[in-house]
């Protein structure tokens, strides 16, 4: 057993380690940790079951419950609903992140990361980037199943790409809210409970299910108008099925930036305090 051990460097011979970690190294460490998430999913693909089924269930449910009443026919409603569901799924796909993070903390996995000479932000960045897999699967299933039901893009490929890029940027921003909740909550179960509290009003108090918000009571309409999820839904609608894009893209981006500016520093602080 001793033969394979190499002698550790003697003091003074070992080069002095750098006292700071460059942004490039942090990004590389973040990608290594994102790979960890992907490897986990490869070993237990059943974890993706909910992610895969979620878009199908919501699409079927909303389409056939509201379709006739809202737009006269399910076919014409599908064109409005699917872009709305892109926004909804971008929100829902962030929910698992906080739970997973909280579990990592409880299992002591984060302690090992924190004892390594990597930036404190690397594990968090890794978790967020690693969860991108979830976003991609949700969107592919949503669009794939939607096309089977008769959904068609009516704009150019670049606009469609822009729509999903915007949804992804917004998703990344909201991930930090999920991270923050995951860091603050005492247990993984609490994370899930809390997730519903902040995800539901934000998601459904919006124009994702119907573009016309004028039938809502005043207070709700006011909320739906400023709600970033509405802006994202409207932007995605315009970019995928046509119509005026207006300022929705800019509002969405501004909201995304605002969310990150607030939640990232808070998350980093909670992460250090959780020590």
């Amino acid at each position, binding site marked *: *057993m*001793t033969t*394979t*051990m*190499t*002698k*550790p*460097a*003697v*003091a003074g011979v*070992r080069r*002095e*380690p*750098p*006292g*700071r*970690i460059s942004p490039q*190294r942090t990004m590389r*460490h973040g990608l*290594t*940790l994102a*790979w*960890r998430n992907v*490897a*986990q999913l490869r*070993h*237990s693909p059943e974890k993706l079951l909910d992610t895969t089924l979620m878009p199908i269930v919501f699409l079927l449910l909303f389409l056939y419950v509201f379709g006739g009443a809202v737009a006269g026919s399910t076919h014409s409603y599908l064109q409005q609903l699917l872009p709305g569901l892109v926004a909804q799924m971008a929100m829902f796909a962030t929910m698992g992140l906080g739970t997973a993070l909280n579990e990592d903390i409880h*299992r*002591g*996995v984060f*302690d*090992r*990361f*924190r*004892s*390594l*000479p*990597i930036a404190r932000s*690397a594990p968090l960045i890794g978790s967020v980037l690693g969860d991108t897999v979830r976003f991609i699967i949700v969107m592919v299933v949503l669009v794939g199943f939607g096309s089977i039901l008769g959904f068609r893009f009516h704009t150019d490929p670049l606009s469609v790409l822009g729509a999903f890029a915007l949804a992804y940027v917004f998703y990344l921003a909201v991930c930090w809210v999920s991270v923050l909740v995951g860091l603050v909550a005492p247990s993984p179960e609490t994370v899930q409970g809390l997730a519903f509290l902040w995800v539901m009003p934000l998601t459904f108090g919006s124009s994702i299910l119907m573009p016309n918000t004028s039938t809502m009571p005043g207070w709700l309409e006011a909320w739906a108008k400023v709600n970033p999820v509405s802006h994202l839904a409207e932007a995605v609608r315009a970019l995928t099925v046509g119509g005026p894009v207006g300022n929705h893209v800019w509002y969405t981006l501004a909201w995304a930036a605002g969310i990150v500016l607030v939640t990232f520093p808070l998350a980093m602080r909670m992460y250090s305090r959780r*020590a």
Partner: protein
Amino acid sequence: MSYVIQAEGLQKRFGDTKALDGVDIAARRGTVLGVLGPNGAGKTTAVRVLATLLKPDAGRAEVCGYDVRKDAVRVRAMIGLTGQYASVDEELTGSENLRMIARLLDFGRAEARSRAVELLERFRLTDAGGRAVKTYSGGMRRRLDLAASLINRPEVIFLDEPTTGLDPRARNEVWETVREVVADGATVLLTTQYLEEADALADRIAVFDHGRVIAEGTSDDLKAQIGRQTLAVRAADAARAGQLAAIVGELAGERPEVQEPTGLVTVPVSDAAMLSALVRRLDDAGIEAAELALRMPSLDEVFLTLTGHLAEETRSENLVAEGSLA
């Protein structure tokens, strides 16, 4: 002589609990410092402060000459940490865990792979390397955790209760590994609740109780500090045990115990010089000694004397507190 771990006056408070109440410890290069104490004594908190996971409220600590507060990143480059609860990713395979940590330590892809293969072999995990860690036994998991903390060939290795919950065979394997890494020049700080473990591995022992170091020294120092060695003598002719006991009692100034039916006479002594006096008296009386020994007290006795309570009695009640707070 250089100290690779040096801490002075460390204090850490969690709410009303003083987890560390002015801790001074030091370890020389290439030695094992055993931190011994019951659960809740502050051992884990001390390790977490030294491993830069926790900032002390007061006091100073250096690892390899770097301040744990101001130079935390450099400290992290020099240390390996194995926590009380195995901190590998259960969802990944053993090999993936090692490769991931190697990559985080800036090993190249190929380097990381070969280091993982090397360590898996060394810890007899080669066959299990491709399996998810959640299928491992407790001993295998602990070995993988140890392997993970050795990837960087760290100068200082912190082992927080590395054998808690392991069966004797797995424990012996961990002990063997500790001896190997020390033989290779690393310095180890090991926390344990097992007196036997500290006695077997540690060059020096710091006894923790209620967030303070209540005694420090080699295992022999600690035993001598108590000053209560035991004289044990047995006459070849068991019938003369009574006469023997009388002589021993007279010399020790204390009434000896006589074990039946062996006729072994024992008495606590503080002065080893009485041994030669006893030999002369036995000669004079014509008693032949079949057994004559001066016994050091066990660490269990040391702990009991130092703290007024047994080392392992508080185990369960503080487990949750220390685990979650620290």
